[in-house]
C-alpha cells in the first residue's frame, strides 16, 4: 500500500458526528432547548425501553453539533468523508429514508412538464416525486423473465429507442439493482444519456454494498451516474430511515441542498445522523471483509436451497448481457413456483410457523436479506432447514401457478394532473377503460400496477384480483378495503 492510500484510510477512521456527540456528553450542558424529554428525564418509560445512552444523544442541532440544513462543521466533515468513501463529488445525509433522497433527486433535476425515462419497476417514491413536480414519465418495459415471473433491467436498445423518441427528456432513472438483485448496463446507459445531455439518476436503495464489496456489480458513481440514492440502513447497517444521497461532478450540490430543505425536517435526528457516520466508517474500514462474508453466506445458502429441489435460488446464470447485465450475488432471491406455492405463502409460513421473517414474498419469489448483521451460519441453517420442511409439508400441485407480472401501462395524463383532477369512485370490477387517479401497489415489493394518469384495462383488473387472492397486500388506494378505485370524472 502506498503512503497516499494509507493516509486516506486513516481519514476514514474518523467519524466526526459521532465524535462530537461523545464530546458533547462529557460537557454536561444544561438543556434549556428541545427535545423536551431533556436527555430522557421527562419520559421514564421511554428511557427504560430505549436506554439512557440512546436518549442522551437524542439532541437538537447546536453549535458543536452543526446543523443538517446548513452544515458548516462536523456534519460537513462527515459528508466529505462519505463522499470520499463512495467516490462521489458530494454526499447528503438523509433522515427521511431513501424516499426523501429519491424525491430530492427528481425535484432537483425535473420541472413541470419535463420528461424522465424510467423503468416501470421503479419504487413508488419515484412516481410520488413526479406527482410533486409535475414531470412526465416515459416508461421502459423492463424485460420479464417468464420462468421466474420477475421484471428485469432495462435493455440498452429500449433505452436508445426511448432517448431517440424523447430527445427532450431531462434524465434517465436506473434501478441498481432491482429488489431481486438484477442490474442493467448502467455504464452504457450513462454513456447514451450523457451523449444527449441527459442526467442519470440511480435508485440504489438495495446497492450500498456495491461501493465496498468485491466481485459485485458496478456502483452508480463508479459507472459515472450523476446522482444516486441509497439506503445505508438496508445492507449497510445504519438505523432505519437513514440514507445517503450522492452527487457526481455535474450536479450543483448547493442547489440540491436547497431542494432537500424544501421538505426536510429542521430537526434532523442525531441518532440517525450518527448511525450514518458510524456505519460509513465501519464499511470504509471493514466493508470488503463484511461483504465477502455476506457473499459466502448467500452463495452457500443458494447452493443448499437448490439441492432441496423445487426451489430455484437464482444467480449469475441469469446474466444475458442486456436486461440482466449483472446480478447481485448477495441477494438470496428464491423462486418457489415449482413447489406449487406462491412466494407470499412461503413468506407467511416462515413467519407464522418457523419464526423466521424474510424481506418479501411476491407471487413467485421470496427474498431473504443477508447483510452486515449476519455473522455466521446458524440462522442460515435455520432458513434452509425450514424451507426443507415447507417442501415436505406444504408442496402442492403447481398447475396454474405461474402468472405474468408485468403489464404495460398506458400513460394518458401526467401523474400530477391525474392526482389533482376531479375524480369519482367506482367499483374495481367496473373500472375497465377509465383513467386511474391513484396508485395500486403490490406490496411487497412496492411496484405499481397502476399509477395516476394511467388507463385501466381488463388485464390489470384481473391481475389485481389474482394478487389479492394470493395474499399479496395491495396499498395506495383511498378505499382501505380495496373494492373501489378513484378514476377521472367525465371519462368512460
Amino acid at each position, binding site marked *: 500500500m502506498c503512503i497516499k492510500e494509507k493516509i486516506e484510510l486513516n481519514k476514514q477512521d474518523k467519524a466526526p458526528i459521532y465524535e462530537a456527540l461523545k464530546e458533547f456528553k462529557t460537557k454536561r450542558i444544561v438543556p434549556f432547548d428541545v427535545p423536551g424529554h431533556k436527555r430522557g428525564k421527562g419520559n421514564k418509560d421511554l428511557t427504560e425501553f430505549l436506554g439512557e445512552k440512546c436518549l442522551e444523544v437524542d439532541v437538537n442541532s447546536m453549535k458543536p453539533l452543526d446543523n443538517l440544513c446548513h452544515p458548516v462543521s462536523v456534519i460537513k466533515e462527515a459528508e466529505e468523508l462519505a463522499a470520499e468513501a463512495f467516490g462521489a463529488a458530494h454526499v447528503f445525509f438523509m433522515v427521511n429514508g431513501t424516499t426523501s433522497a429519491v424525491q430530492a433527486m427528481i425535484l432537483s433535476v425535473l420541472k413541470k412538464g419535463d420528461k424522465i425515462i424510467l423503468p416501470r419497476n421503479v419504487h413508488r417514491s419515484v412516481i410520488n416525486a413526479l406527482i410533486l413536480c409535475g414531470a412526465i414519465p416515459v416508461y421502459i418495459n423492463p424485460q420479464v423473465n417468464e420462468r421466474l415471473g420477475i421484471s428485469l433491467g432495462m435493455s440498452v436498445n429500449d433505452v436508445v429507442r426511448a432517448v431517440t423518441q424523447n430527445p427532450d427528456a431531462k434524465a434517465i432513472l436506473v434501478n441498481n439493482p432491482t429488489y431481486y438483485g438484477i442490474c442493467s448496463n448502467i455504464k452504457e446507459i450513462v454513456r447514451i444519456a450523457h451523449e444527449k445531455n441527459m442526467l442519470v439518476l440511480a435508485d440504489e436503495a438495495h446497492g450500498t454494498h456495491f461501493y465496498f464489496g468485491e466481485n459485485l456489480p458496478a456502483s452508480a458513481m463508479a459507472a459515472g451516474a450523476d446522482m444516486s440514492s441509497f439506503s445505508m440502513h438496508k445492507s449497510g447497517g445504519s438505523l432505519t430511515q437513514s440514507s445517503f444521497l450522492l452527487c457526481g461532478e455535474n450536479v450543483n450540490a448547493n442547489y440540491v441542498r436547497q431542494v432537500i430543505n424544501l421538505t426536510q425536517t429542521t430537526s434532523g435526528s442525531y441518532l440517525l445522523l450518527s448511525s450514518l457516520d458510524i456505519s460509513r466508517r465501519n464499511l470504509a474500514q471493514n466493508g470488503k471483509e463484511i461483504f465477502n462474508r455476506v457473499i459466502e453466506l448467500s452463495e452457500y445458502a443458494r447452493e443448499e436451497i437448490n439441492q432441496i429441489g423445487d426451489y430455484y435460488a437464482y444467480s449469475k446464470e441469469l446474466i444475458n448481457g442486456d436486461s440482466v447485465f449483472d446480478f447481485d450475488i448477495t441477494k438470496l432471491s428464491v423462486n418457489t413456483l415449482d413447489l406449487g406455492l406462491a412466494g407470499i405463502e412461503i413468506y407467511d409460513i416462515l413467519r407464522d410457523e418457523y*419464526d423466521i421473517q424474510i424481506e418479501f414474498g411476491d407471487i413467485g419469489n421470496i427474498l431473504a436479506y443477508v447483510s452486515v448483521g449476519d455473522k455466521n451460519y446458524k440462522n442460515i441453517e*435455520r432458513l434452509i*432447514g425450514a424451507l426443507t*420442511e415447507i417442501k*415436505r409439508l406444504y408442496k402442492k400441485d403447481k398447475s396454474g401457478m405461474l402468472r405474468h407480472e408485468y403489464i404495460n401501462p398506458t400513460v394518458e395524463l401526467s401523474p400530477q394532473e391525474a392526482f389533482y383532477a376531479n375524480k369519482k369512485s367506482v367499483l374495481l370490477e367496473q373500472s375497465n377503460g377509465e383513467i386511474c387517479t391513484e396508485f395500486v401497489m403490490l406490496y411487497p415489493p412496492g411496484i405499481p400496477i397502476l399509477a395516476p394518469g394511467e388507463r385501466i384495462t381488463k388485464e390489470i383488473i384481473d391481475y389485481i384480483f389474482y394478487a389479492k387472492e394470493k395474499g399479496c397486500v395491495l396499498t395506495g388506494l383511498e378505499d382501505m378495503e380495496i373494492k373501489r378505485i378513484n378514476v377521472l370524472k367525465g371519462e368512460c
Partner: protein
Amino acid sequence: MEFWFSEKHTENVKLSIKVDKQLYSEKSKYQRIDVFESYEFGKFLTLDGFMMLTEKDEFIYHEMITHVPMAVHPSAKKVLVIGAGDGGAIRELTRYKDIEQIDLVEIDEKVVEVCKEFLPKTACKFDDDRVNIYYQDGLKFVRKYENEYDIIIIDSTDPFGPGEGLFTKEFYGNCFKALKEDGIMVNQHESPFYDNDATAMKRAHKRIVESFPISRVYQAHIPTYPSGHWLFGFASKKYHPIRDLNSSKWNELEIKTKYYNTNLHKGAFYLPNYVEEMLEEHE
C-alpha cells in the same frame, strides 16, 4: 482462599460449587469451554458458564436420555445422537450389542477433544467401531436424511448460543423426516420450574407436538441443573412410551444401571399437575 463456581439459575438464584482447581479454560469457535475439579461433584464441564455435566450426577441424565427410547423401540439398529460431545450418551448406547451404527453430530470439535482429555468417565467410547463422529451443525446434518434412523437423541445445550437451532420447528420436522416410519426422537427438554426455562420448555413441546403424532414428556432429578427438576421429550411416529415398553426384554439384556429401571421408566411419565397443565396448553 476459597474458590467457587457459581451459575445463575435465575436473576435471583444461583448454585455455587466449591472448586479445588480449574483444569481447563478456552474459547472455541463457538463457545467458552471450562473444566473444573470440585470436592463434591468431581470434575465438571461448563459451556459459556452453564453446567453441562458433573462426574457425580451425569449418570442420571445419560441413562434417562438413552435407555428410555431403547427400551421402547423393539429393534434399534441405527441411532443418531446430536450434541453430546461429552460422550455420555454414546457410552450408554454402546452397551447395546444390537445397535449397529451410532452417528454423533457435534458442532464443536473442541468439546470432544477436551472431554477426551479431562472427562474419560463419559468420553470413553468414542473409539467404538460403531461410532462415527461428524463435526457439523446438527440442523444441517439431519436435513440431508430421509427414513434413515431408528432413534434420534437430541442432547443439546440450552436454546440460546450454539444450541438454539436444535429447539426449532424446522429441526424437529427434519428429525421426523430422518427417522424411519417407527422411529423415536428423544430430546433434552429443559425444566418446568423457573419461568425462563419453562418458557423454553413449552415452546419446545409445542413445536414437537406439531411435528410428531405421539409426543410425551418424562422427568428426572438432576441436582446440578436449575431447580434439579429436569424434563425429556419422547416423540414418536408409532410407539407409545409406556404401552410399547417391553420390560422383560430390556431386563433380559442385564444392562446394569444406577438410575434407570423399567418401573421408573413408567413412573417418569407421570408428571406433577402444574407440568401437565403447561404441556396441555400446547397440545
